[in-house]
């Protein structure tokens, strides 16, 4: 079977744009990605548009109203924080199936400040009375479970934030570009132990887009030089686990998707040169080191201590700054992670370039307390 390639990928600078509309943000990213490969919206045969907060409002069609109403099929995608990667994967599936040769995948989100979700209205308010439904509390429980099993420390979790904030200083498209020394991270406002405010991702506005092409289209258009091969696209939903219904789990779902992704790509974690993983909270990054097989179970604390997952180490993780510092516009995140991998494999990542990067993995999870989880993993290789 012939391969599917990313020929264009780009994102807008993540920031807060209260004066702009969701379709306008999406349009800017779409045009950037099209410009990246020298194509236009007229060349696109289908669009997958990921957005969460306006999932019922045809963001994809509104995007085309901004950049060209060519009549192509549009699918609007929502899958919690895995929304963008799900849109990308659906485009990939269509190309694999031969349904089209050139497709556009866009992810976009406009968010308010502060914690996701809010109190129930009109009935019993469970928050505080029966635990907490906040997202940081959910990922605090996950970190604490890791501590219970492996003795992982508050300081080790905090080191993730130090590393990813440092990486973001090298990324002009990141929301926050400031160093946060360990003492500052640990002394920041405690949100849910062991997560301080600097160990929680940033709610921002953002958009990212990718142009996918079949092998035949890449050849016809002569775009092989900068094309990046999609070596695997895998997804999973949370499998049965007795505790998942009590507090949503993101580990089993990641392990399921990772197994499938490595099998498809015909490689293992030892073959990766860089990883963009879903560091929505600092605790998440450490559990996903193990879920993705970057280290053995129980070794994540030692891996962050070793410095090997920082830029310059043997397996840099979240060199973009990650969700923690680049920002986490929910529907855009999955495609922004892919943009980073594509840029790195092309050798175009500037100051944060991972030298000699040939294989990269992008991972996102989505979900929430009481609603389940999704995981999408893509593996990319130099064409």
């Amino acid at each position, binding site marked *: 079977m012939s391969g599917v390639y990313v020929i264009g990928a780009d994102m807008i600078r993540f920031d807060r744009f209260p004066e702009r509309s969701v379709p306008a943000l999406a349009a800017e990213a779409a045009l950037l990605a099209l410009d990246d490969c020298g194509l236009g919206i007229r060349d696109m045969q289908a669009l997958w548009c990921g957005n969460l907060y306006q999932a019922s409002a045809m963001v994809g069609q509104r995007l085309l109203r901004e950049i060209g109403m060519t009549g192509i099929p549009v699918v609007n995608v929502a899958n919690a924080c895995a929304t963008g990667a799900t849109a990308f994967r659906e485009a990939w599936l269509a190309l694999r199936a031969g349904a089209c040769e050139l497709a556009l995948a866009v992810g976009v989100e406009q968010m308010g400040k502060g*914690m996701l*979700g*809010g*109190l129930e209205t009109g*009935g*019993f*308010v*469970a*928050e*505080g*009375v*029966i*635990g*907490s439904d*906040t997202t*940081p*509390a959910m990922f*605090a*429980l*996950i970190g*604490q*479970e890791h501590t*219970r099993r492996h003795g992982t420390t508050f300081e080790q979790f905090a080191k993730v934030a130090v590393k990813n904030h440092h990486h973001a200083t090298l990324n002009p498209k990141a929301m926050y570009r400031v160093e946060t020394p360990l003492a500052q991270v640990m002394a920041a*406002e*405690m*949100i*849910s*132990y*062991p997560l301080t405010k600097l160990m929680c991702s940033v709610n921002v506005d953002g958009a990212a887009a990718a142009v996918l092409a079949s092998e035949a289209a890449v050849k016809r258009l002569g775009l092989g030089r900068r094309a990046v091969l999609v070596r695997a696209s895998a997804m999973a939903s949370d499998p*049965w686990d*007795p*505790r998942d*219904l*009590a*507090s949503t789990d993101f580990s089993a779902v990641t392990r399921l998707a990772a197994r499938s992704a490595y099998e498809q790509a015909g490689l293992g974690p030892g073959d990766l040169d860089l990883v963009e993983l879903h560091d929505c909270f600092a605790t998440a990054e450490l559990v996903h080191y193990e879920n993705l097989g970057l280290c053995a179970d129980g070794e994540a604390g030692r891996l962050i201590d070793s410095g090997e997952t920082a830029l310059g180490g043997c397996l840099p993780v979240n060199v973009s700054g990650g969700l923690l510092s680049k920002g986490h516009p929910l529907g855009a995140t999955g495609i922004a992670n892919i943009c980073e991998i594509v840029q790195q494999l092309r050798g175009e990542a500037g100051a944060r370039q991972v030298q000699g990067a040939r294989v990269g993995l992008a991972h996102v999870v989505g979900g929430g*307390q009481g609603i389940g989880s999704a995981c999408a993993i893509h593996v990319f290789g130099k064409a």
Partner: protein
Amino acid sequence: MGGAPRPAVPYIHVAADGSCALAGSRCEACGAVYAGEREVCAACCARGRMRSIALATQGRVHTFTTVCRSFPGVPVPFVMAVVDLDGGPALRGTLAGVAPQAVRFGMRVRVEFRDSGQRDADGNPWIAFCFVPATEDGQR
């Protein structure tokens, strides 16, 4: 308290005399245990094999966190715990009656039913539950 007590979550069963229990179900095919009633087993997918059971009101803390910031207006801090009830399942709830720094993994707790203080539109109290520390034999 006035008015008919209403369960704050579907798996609290309030009897006519006001006494409370945790309602659950067990799959006769695979043994999976759930809070509340259900038709199909999410673990083994068996249909028509769920049986209603009463859940234990004692268990152990599996994981926990101190929530220091919640949604606006919610009093903090409080401890949230995931508790493995004896015989299953795991439940998420607030752990009361213990200082956050005194909570330990594996510590013994029991379920206590409480008037949440909240009322529905007709003035009926919402009955909730929380976990409280217990001794090894389950007594306070």
